[in-house]
């Protein structure tokens, strides 16, 4: 995969292109509606779903409040079980660790003239740090083995969904990509490939099989890391993960530091929450758990110490997560278990798709996590908190009760404060001036009533000019954002309070006698 999200424009601009893409709209509308319905069905059958959500939030909050303790516990248990733990402050450090290990383990291939390669389990953490690009730069091919990731990789495309990265593609497009690209990456697609899902899956299976059998190194992420035993957990649907986690001798797992759960009992909560929220299934087809290595020289006197492959590495990545943790309001975003339920219920995501969010984390959670993890300075990052109507569907769907609308407002405030700060470049934006003037007007009822007179004056004039039509059509300037597609009402000739003052003269709470009536013929 050579395409990256670097240099993406601000959200509204990318969204404009996306909403005009009829094929994209159709694909997304169909896919999100299907997943929404499945999720709703399996969530509604859980009697204590709300209690389960609360429990999930509580466990994650406990982890975040004691992250240092649990991380050290995890490291200790992993090491005791024969795994090697690496710490990475950022993407570059994490990539360098993986590239070094993968390079060493594939050195024999390189010497024999074969291209060094790794197989990959679908992983958000490795996408976040741009691992495939880093491996490619070091001359190591990284093969995605998840079906949707394979589609994205073969199509030189970008992921647009956390769970279903090729959600923006329909099966006819997938067939074209397979026919065109599979041959360049390995076993070609059959000549007579159709767009039947079973045929497409079969083509992918045959294409991937030779890679599973050949690879000496696998790279994965982890959905959970259980601190009390040092156990890593991957949940998946296709079995490609199980192949990667068990066949190659070396397994390198890149884990965001917030992926911890303290105990197996806590894990049980998330194994109920995640599949229902994510794929809309009661339980996902494959759940792989491994603890350290099954046997290695010098570890455990030859006795099995764990049950992972022979050579197990765990890279614990920060990459902005401690910055999120430092934000008292924002830190709840680290509860996220990457289920993507918020994407599927988001009316904005449904119409725009994932690419406009400019990172591997799209949708409502991406609009929150992106600016918090990558900083709030870029135009894209500053536009993301505004890429929402604050409709609240995301919070209702979130299995760990992340208050995404509240966080979006919190981040909007930070964006505004950033521009307000002394030393911030340029003049205040017209919006800031308008907001300041508006708030000043509203802060005093007298000022507000004077401002209302302008509205009633416009109403009187509008009534004459529009011959009582009641609505205004297209308007110039910033108002065109409204009026390009919508009519607007002509302001009324009398405000409510003017009517009230005329009809209810004895209200004790009136601060002053009625003086603001009329004045305009």
């Amino acid at each position, binding site marked *: 995969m050579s395409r990256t999200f670097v240099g993406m424009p601000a959200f509204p601009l990318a969204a404009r292109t996306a909403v005009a893409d009829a094929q994209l709209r159709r694909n997304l509308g169909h896919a999100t509606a299907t997943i929404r319905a499945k999720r709703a069905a399996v969530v509604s059958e859980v009697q204590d779903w709300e209690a389960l959500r609360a429990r999930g939030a509580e466990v994650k909050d406990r982890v975040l409040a004691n992250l240092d303790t649990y991380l050290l516990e995890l490291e200790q248990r992993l090491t005791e079980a024969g795994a090697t733990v690496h710490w990475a402050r950022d993407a570059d450090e994490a990539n360098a660790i993986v590239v070094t290990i993968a390079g060493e383990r594939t050195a024999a291939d390189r010497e024999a003239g074969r291209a060094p390669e790794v197989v990959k389990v679908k992983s958000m953490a490795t996408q976040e740090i741009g691992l495939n690009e880093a491996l490619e730069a070091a001359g190591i091919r990284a093969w995605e083995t998840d079906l949707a990731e394979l589609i994205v990789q073969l199509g030189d495309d970008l992921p647009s969904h956390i769970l279903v990265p090729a959600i923006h593609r329909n099966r006819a497009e997938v067939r074209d990509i397979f026919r065109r690209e599979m041959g360049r990456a390995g076993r070609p697609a059959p000549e007579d490939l159709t767009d039947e899902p079973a045929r497409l899956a079969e083509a992918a299976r045959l294409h991937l099989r030779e890679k599973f059998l050949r690879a000496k190194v696998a790279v994965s992420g982890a959905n959970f890391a259980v601190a009390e035993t040092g156990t890593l957990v991957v949940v998946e649907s296709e079995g490609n993960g199980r192949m990667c986690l068990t066949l190659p001798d070396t397994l390198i797992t890149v884990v965001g530091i917030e992926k911890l759960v303290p105990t197996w009992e806590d894990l049980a909560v998330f194994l109920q929450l995640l599949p229902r929220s994510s794929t809309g299934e009661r339980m996902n087809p494959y759940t792989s758990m491994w603890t350290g290595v099954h046997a290695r020289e010098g570890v455990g006197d030859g006795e099995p110490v764990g049950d992972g492959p022979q050579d197990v590495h765990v890279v614990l990545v920060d990459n902005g997560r401690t910055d999120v943790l430092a934000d008292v309001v924002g830190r709840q975003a680290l509860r996220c278990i990457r289920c993507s339920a918020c994407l599927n219920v988001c009316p904005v995501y449904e119409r725009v798709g994932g690419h406009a969010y400019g990172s591997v984390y799209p949708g409502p959670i991406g609009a929150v996590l992106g600016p918090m993890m990558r900083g709030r300075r870029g135009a894209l990052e500053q536009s993301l908190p*505004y890429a929402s109507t*604050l*409709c609240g569907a995301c919070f209702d769907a979130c299995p760990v009760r992340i208050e995404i609308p509240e966080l979006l407002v919190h981040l909007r*405030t930070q964006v505004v404060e950033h521009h307000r700060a002394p030393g911030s470049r340029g003049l205040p934006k017209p919006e800031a001036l308008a907001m300041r003037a508006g708030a000043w007007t509203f802060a005093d009822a007298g000022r507000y009533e004077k401002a209302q007179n302008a509205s009633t004056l416009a109403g009187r004039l509008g009534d004459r000019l529009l011959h009582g039509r009641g609505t205004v059509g297209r308007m110039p300037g910033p108002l065109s954002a409204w009026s*390009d597609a919508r009519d*607007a009402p002509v302001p009324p000739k009398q405000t409510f309070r003017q009517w009230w003052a005329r009809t209810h003269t004895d209200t004790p*709470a009136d601060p002053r006698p009625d003086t603001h009536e009329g004045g305009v013929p």
Partner: protein
Amino acid sequence: MRVALFATCFNDTMWPSTPKAVVTLLERLGCAVEFPRAQTCCGQMFTNTGYATESVPLVRSFVETFTPYDAVVVPSGSCTGSVREQHAALARRVGDAGLERAVSELAPRVHELSEFVVDVLGVTEVGAYFPHRVTYHPTCHSLRMIRVGDRPLRLLRAVRGIDLVSLPAAEECCGFGGTFVMKNPDVSVAMGSDKARHVRETGAEVLVAGDNSCLAHVGGLLSRHRAGVRTLHLAEVLAATEDAPWRPGDGVDHEVGS
């Protein structure tokens, strides 16, 4: 019980027929209502656009204006949400513990119209008459922020003569979102067009909701499409009776007679 009407700045200025209908309705239900004239705006637009600093004086003014009352009635789900769900955090943000306490004491007494009628007055049959085909859009902040549930529908079902039809994908956002209409006009219109399409599928002549802001957006689209569907605030449906029926005007009832 001293009951105050918080008309909201948007209704006061742009949709006066709505707060007027609230007065008519509540007086008919035997509830005297006052309109404290010091009221202006709850600050929602400022808060939700990131201008928390600008909102704080409006929180202060809201508290000062409405603290003397036993109940505050608001014909808007989102403005009710702004007061109940956001004012305390705004006070906390500037470290004003006194204001935060005052907000917390007042907030539970602030009711969206359907909450006030159903919960405080204990009425669902309000004596209304509205012989029209109606569909109801539950606005997001009514539904998911202040959780009015089916109160508006219970009130509408009890209206005499009404032909109430359910709206497909009713719970999906209409795409208004405050300054979202200006900041993301393309997505807003895409969402609004779908909402408008669902409204037209019902064959309703009137789209009813508890927020005039959302109705201005969907109604603006419907009007541009010359769809022949009008929008009306819940209060205006509930205020109408056989003796004083709601009168179709010239598309928008902006005449506020005395």
